[in-house]
């Protein structure tokens, strides 16, 4: 009841739009269940950024920095990680945060039957509580990706008391230790959080309440910002960028995504891999890749907002293998490859794509581009759920599909191209690639990892089970009264240090 009155009061204040301590954020979708162990959506992670603190966080440059863990050391042999936790932290229900709580959290992520975090934490064999605020993670094998996993949902700490009481219904009333606590949620309408007075870093937080409003229509989302009903929106669409930039009451912030968009080919996933572009279709895939002008694609469909690409990360980022630059369009070379593969008179391919406007435009532009090389491309539009099912079942030739991106390079590539990879819809299998990507997982030496990924890239850019095309740019539009917002390549909205002037 107290919450209800609080919300009522807060909303009444927000309606008049005058109070600086209330922040209203427009989201593209309604998040799924608000349980860090059970949730799957990107947009859900945006809400967690305010609701649930993690063991570690990242900087905009993807360095791992302390959040609830203040220090950590990886053992010489890489088989364990010693961690020191922040003292004086409490969960929203008053339960103290300590080493036992952290251990319980990792155990829940690993054992809750509904948990989606199992594979992310698979390399943690056991957690040893060595003191009130110290613990040791024992690993099954050296794993360089563990800390990056703990910088996301797998590292979000929820109240063990609440977790035990609520079980799988935890998401109805999530209790974490972040700067804001959960107040209420009305499906497809809003999620309301209020400032947590006992937050360990409360002075960096300048809002009393945060309200997240899912508004799927991009034009309407922007209109709400322009009319002053919202303070901030995420995923401004590229086509609305000019309009937003022309409005002097709006600031646009941007960051290149960690994810990618590209074309995944079926090279070994069931019978449908038996096609000219499939199992033995390396040359044709190269031809297709060469016949696409990625720069023009980005200009035509996305007004130049996206970054043309050819690898798992965008050119210039830390793990980009500079030795394999984005290919420039070369129709003659593509034709030569077609001839070499025995298709001098042209070849047909069917590509499935989601039925949204952007994907359709992308495919139409690509269709025109590859036609010049003699590739006769047919577009099959599918509703997303259908496309996903067909892709996973191998019932496709090629598929236009994206990935939202992960902080550690392993998360962007290992599961897609290794033989037993969890999302290897391509059915690609190459022992050398498996070896290199497994090795890159097991060393903590960044230089060594870069070399291993570059070596894998040398094979992958020949074999092309995935033809990478572009990297999205996260666009946020903010009311000009908002200060201190920092764009992150993971697309999240971190409220630390953000304030609103009158």
């Amino acid at each position: 009841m107290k919450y209800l009155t609080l919300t009522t009061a807060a909303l009444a204040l927000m309606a008049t739009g005058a109070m600086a301590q209330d922040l209203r954020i427009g989201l593209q979708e309604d998040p799924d269940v608000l349980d860090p162990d059970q949730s799957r959506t990107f947009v859900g992670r945006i809400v967690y950024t305010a609701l649930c603190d993690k063991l570690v966080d990242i900087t905009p440059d993807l360095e791992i920095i302390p959040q609830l863990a203040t220090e950590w050391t990886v053992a010489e042999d890489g088989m364990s990680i010693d961690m020191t936790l922040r003292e004086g932290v409490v969960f929203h229900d008053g339960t103290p945060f300590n080493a036992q709580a952290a251990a319980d959290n990792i155990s829940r992520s690993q054992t809750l039957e509904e948990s989606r975090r199992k594979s992310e934490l698979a390399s943690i064999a056991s957690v040893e509580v060595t003191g009130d605020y110290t613990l040791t993670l024992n690993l099954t094998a050296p794993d360089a990706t563990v800390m990056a996993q703990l910088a996301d949902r797998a590292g979000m700490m929820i109240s063990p008391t609440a977790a035990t009481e609520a079980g799988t219904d935890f998401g109805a009333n999530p209790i974490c230790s972040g700067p804001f606590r959960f107040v209420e949620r009305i499906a497809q309408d809003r999620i309301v959080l209020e400032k947590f007075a006992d937050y360990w870093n409360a002075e960096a937080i300048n809002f009393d309440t945060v309200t997240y409003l899912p508004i799927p229509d991009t034009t309407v989302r922007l209109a709400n910002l322009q009319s002053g009903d919202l303070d901030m929106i995420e995923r401004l669409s590229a086509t609305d960028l000019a309009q937003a930039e022309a409005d002097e009451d709006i600031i646009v912030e941007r960051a290149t995504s960690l994810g990618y968009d590209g074309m995944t080919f079926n090279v070994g996933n069931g019978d449908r891999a038996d096609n000219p572009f499939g199992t033995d279709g390396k040359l044709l895939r190269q031809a297709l890749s060469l016949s696409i002008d990625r720069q023009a694609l980005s200009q035509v469909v996305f007004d130049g907002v996206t970054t043309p690409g050819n690898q798992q990360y965008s050119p210039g980022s830390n793990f980009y293998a500079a030795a394999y630059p984005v290919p420039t369009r070369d129709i003659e070379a593509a034709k030569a490859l077609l001839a070499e593969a025995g298709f001098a008179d042209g070849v047909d391919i069917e590509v499935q794509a989601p039925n949204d406007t952007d994907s359709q435009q992308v495919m139409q532009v690509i269709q025109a581009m590859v036609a010049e090389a003699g590739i006769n491309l047919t577009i099959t539009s599918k509703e997303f759920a259908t496309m996903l099912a067909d892709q996973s079942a191998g019932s496709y030739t090629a598929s236009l599909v994206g990935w939202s991106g992960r902080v550690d390079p392993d998360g962007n590539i290992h599961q897609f191209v290794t033989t037993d990879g969890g999302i290897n819809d391509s059915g690609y299998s190459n022992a050398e690639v498996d070896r290199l990507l497994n090795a890159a997982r097991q060393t903590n030496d960044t230089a060594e990892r870069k070399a291993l990924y570059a070596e894998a890239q040398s094979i992958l850019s020949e074999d092309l089970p995935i033809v990478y095309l572009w990297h999205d740019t996260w666009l946020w539009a903010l009311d000009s009264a908002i200060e201190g917002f920092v764009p992150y390549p993971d697309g999240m909205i971190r409220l630390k240090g953000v304030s609103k002037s009158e």
Partner: protein
Amino acid sequence: MLAFFLRRVAIAIPTILLISVFVFALQKLLPGDPLLVLAGEERDPEVLEFLREKYRLNDPIPIQYLTWIGNALTGDLGTSFRTNQPVTQLIAQKLPVTLQLAVMSLIFAIAIGIPAGIVSAYRKGTVTDYIANVVALSGLSIPNFWLGIMLILLVSVKWQLLPASGYVPPGEDFWLSIKTMLMPAFVLGTALAATLMRHTRSAMLGVLTSDYVRTARAKGLSERKVVLKHAFRNALTPIVTLTALLFGELIAGAVLTEQIFTIPGFGKLVVDAVFNRDYAVVQGIVLVTAVGFIVMNLLADMAYFLLNPRLRSA
């Protein structure tokens, strides 16, 4: 009248059951795996299998249906795959929203449509009639989404008079709630007003040329009395039916309007649920909508008794 009422209720029950079977079957015919959609970017086969068991998706489809309908009879409509919320709770959250939008739209529709229909029938063939017809035709032809976005851009962004979108429960702030709902209700209402106007016009045209209207005029009654009391009351039967049906449609959710104005009503919920293959949610809403539709029909039939004394003895 009671016998009539009971007979109608008895017919309604198998109708609702049939609808539930159809919807259940149609959903299963849709391609796509609900759990793959649910899994998103994390597809752990073990977890997927566990969830398949948990939601009984491995059972034969008839068994799945019987389980669902059995639970539904006890008031349990299942839980949403996506948010783990009970479907009954989702419906309880959405129903007031949808009802508010429906009632407000209908007020717009009736207030505009019926007077316009009467006037244009009465002034048949005059400039007034033509203007009313052109306006009605535009009301029918202008797409809701276009009108909606134009209104948002003008009224909210440019003039900043009304909130651009969203929903505020009337219990929280009554006037803000009405203000927020004004534009969507207008957009929906104008489209319905056009339909109502056309039907009112044709019903009135039929009545206005009938003998008893001529008799009424011959008696020397005022035109006002002839048109509104004698003619309109008799023309009302089809209009009431239509209004009830329109209301039924409104309860089913005004998908586009809800999407544009981000109103968390049934339409938006059901569309999202279909795309996410959130079976329980789709089923639950269709069931509630079907019941709502049938109740509205029943009420329309009841209204005839009040409007038409001849039926009362039948």
